[in-house]
């Protein structure tokens, strides 16, 4: 085997090293630093989204949604895009979370209320309470590529774990419509109660919702498309998140805007019970848990603040002021 003489080998190695360094630098240029965990709050009366550092609880920015009555939020899986419904405008705002600015505004329908992303994040489904429809927005082109009549006054949206079904709560029908996402047709309507609102997929794959006009929550099993449990939890249950209390859990944390409380619900369908009640501030509504299930973040629509609780001890860790009437709270990973 022939070996290159040293006076040729050394410069060649240096050149190769430089090329590798340049490639590495190019790679760094294209690859942006990840965004740390953040709390996002939709402020309905400020028409803004508050952005807060989820570790230090310090404000990062307030984003103008360029629309009116910002109500609900959905975050893309990679955390780069935040979608916000705006009831007054009937529009969906698309927010660049890195640039911290609204980059698109899409008309979906009258009084557009809630938004949920399909499991592949290719589409944003937006419920239009004033049109009794759900608009399907292509998240790549921002085009509305379909509209589904789901029932009267759609106010909640969630997808099943496998994405085969979408669940739409309809306040006017006091029911949840089940939409087959393959045919985009309503295949079933499940009566649930007064003013059903936000829907959440639980850790067990079941769909949880609260009847914000009553006192109860309900659980729908996608396997049977039936309501498998209800439980009276207190006045005006709004939103639900799941977290652990030490070894116990996951428990459902339900904001009760009529009782200024958070109800902690434990158990399997059929044996649901309220474990405890955490005193909250004025009109708790939005609620979210961190992925580890150790913190819950609660938006208070009358207090204009987010309170952060340790789910293990129920201790209040921080109170963060946000915009006016925060309805939806969401925490990125």
């Amino acid at each position, binding site marked *: 085997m022939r070996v290159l003489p040293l006076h040729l080998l050394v410069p060649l190695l240096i050149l190769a090293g430089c090329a590798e360094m340049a490639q590495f630098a190019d790679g760094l240029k294209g690859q942006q630093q990840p965004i740390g965990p953040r709390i996002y709050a939709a402020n309905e009366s400020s028409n803004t989204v508050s952005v807060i550092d989820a570790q230090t609880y310090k*404000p*990062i*920015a*307030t*984003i*103008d949604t*360029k629309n009116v009555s910002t109500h609900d939020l959905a975050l893309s899986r990679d955390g780069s895009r935040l979608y916000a419904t705006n009831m007054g405008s009937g529009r969906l705002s698309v927010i*660049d979370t890195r*640039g*911290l*600015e*609204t*980059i*698109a*505004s*899409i*008309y979906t329908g009258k009084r557009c209320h809630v938004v949920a992303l399909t499991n592949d994040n290719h*589409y944003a489904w937006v419920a239009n309470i004033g049109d009794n429809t759900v608009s*399907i927005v*292509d998240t790549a*082109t*921002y*085009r*509305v*590529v*379909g*509209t589904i009549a789901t029932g009267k006054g759609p106010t909640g949206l969630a997808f099943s774990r496998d994405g085969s079904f979408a669940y739409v709560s309809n306040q006017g029908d006091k029911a949840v419509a089940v939409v087959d996402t*393959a*045919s*985009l*047709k309503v295949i079933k309507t499940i009566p649930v109660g007064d003013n059903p609102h936000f829907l959440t997929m639980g850790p067990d794959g079941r769909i949880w919702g609260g009847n914000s006009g009553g006192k109860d929550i309900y659980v729908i099993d996608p396997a049977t498309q039936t309501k498998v449990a209800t439980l009276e939890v207190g006045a005006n249950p709004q939103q639900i998140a799941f977290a652990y209390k030490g070894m116990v859990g996951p428990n459902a944390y339900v904001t009760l805007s009529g009782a200024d409380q958070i109800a902690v619900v434990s158990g399997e369908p059929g044996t649901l019970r309220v474990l405890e009640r955490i005193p909250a501030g004025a009109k708790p509504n939005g609620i979210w848990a961190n992925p580890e299930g150790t913190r819950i973040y609660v938006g208070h629509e009358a207090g204009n603040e987010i309170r952060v609780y340790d789910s293990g001890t129920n201790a209040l860790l921080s109170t963060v002021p946000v915009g006016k009437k925060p309805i939806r709270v969401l925490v990125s990973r």
Partner: protein
Amino acid sequence: MASTRFDAHRPRVGIVPCVLLAVLLAWLPLAESATTTPAVGTAKNAIGTLLVIHSDGIEERLRGQGTLVLYEGDVLSTSADSRALIELRDGTWVGFDFATRARLLSRWEKGKGDTRILRLEIGTLWIKTGSNAKPLEVETPVASAAAIIESGGKIEFMIATLDDGNSMLSVIDGVVPFGTAFGTCPIKPSTVSYAVQGKKCTKAEALDTKRAAAWTAKLAKGREAMAAAPLPTFWPPPDTSTHQVIPRELLVDGSAKPTTLAALAAKMEKALNRTGYSSPGYYAVPGGFAMLTQLERIHPDATPFPADQRWKIKVDPASLSSFNLSAYLKALLGKDAGVFRVIAFVFTAEPIVSDNVKPVMDEAKHWVEQGGKALPGSYAAQPFSADMVCTALIYEFEIPTHGAPGRQRKPSEHNGQEHLRAARILQALGG
């Protein structure tokens, strides 16, 4: 719309007043324009009626040719026996077939600006873009069709909602991306594709799409005729003080030979000359023409002043279109109090619907000079068909006190017939 507000950024106290002042000064000239609502386009022609419901619930209707201004959020609809044509601001034409309803929307994107969107609820739309058109999309309940203009290209297509809830796209010119919630396919000219709820659009099939769009020709014909008219248009006319239909028998001689528009214009000009009017100004109206008389000073009983005072009318100096020192100084002397009138004789088969815009006296003063001096040859041989009507639109103004601004009198204290008799025009026509 404000941009992102970063809470950490705080300007230094010392420069705050300067910055505020600069921002204020920069903002002031924009403040007025920021309060105006930009028009999205104009409804130009309706065979039957186009109903426009603005976002505040106010309704407007277009019948025949005209200029009904359209805004974001407007819902436009045609009934089962009506069709209509609108022109968007970028020159794109949109035809509404029978029983069609669509809403004017837009999407905003950073760096791309606004994309015009027509949300078709029911019926059929025909779209034809110009070469410099901006992006446009039509949404149906199950799909979205986009007109994306390549450099120098044109797009023409029809999109319809079908009774079964599906949508059909027929492309006449250009390539149109047709998207559903299950994917997007490019549809080429002379083909048709269907979008079915829950499916991707169907494979494009060949179709004589030009023939399918033949219904738009009549709408476009009216538009082209207006555009090609060698006269300025007087349509829709401004709000009138009163009006009167001139009996047909006063205009035609009763012989079997049809009266031409040229003969009609000559007869009317002769009648006007006999009653002291100078040459009228000619304007185009849908399917016909209009003759406007010079602004004249009249008595309270609608009879004209003697000739030496009839035509001496001062105008607002600001209304002078080109600077002329003598005219300007005259205008500065102030406007005389009195009552004034313009008569517009409109010959058309279209129903006359005013645009609800009040005429401005200082503009009315220039109507004759801004119109054509004679009826062009392209009109001359056209017959005064049986469905055409001559309507005298009376515009009456008053200047209540010396130097005060002129304003329209509405309603007039006299009806149209009284005005025409007081001006002795009916008599001159043989009435």
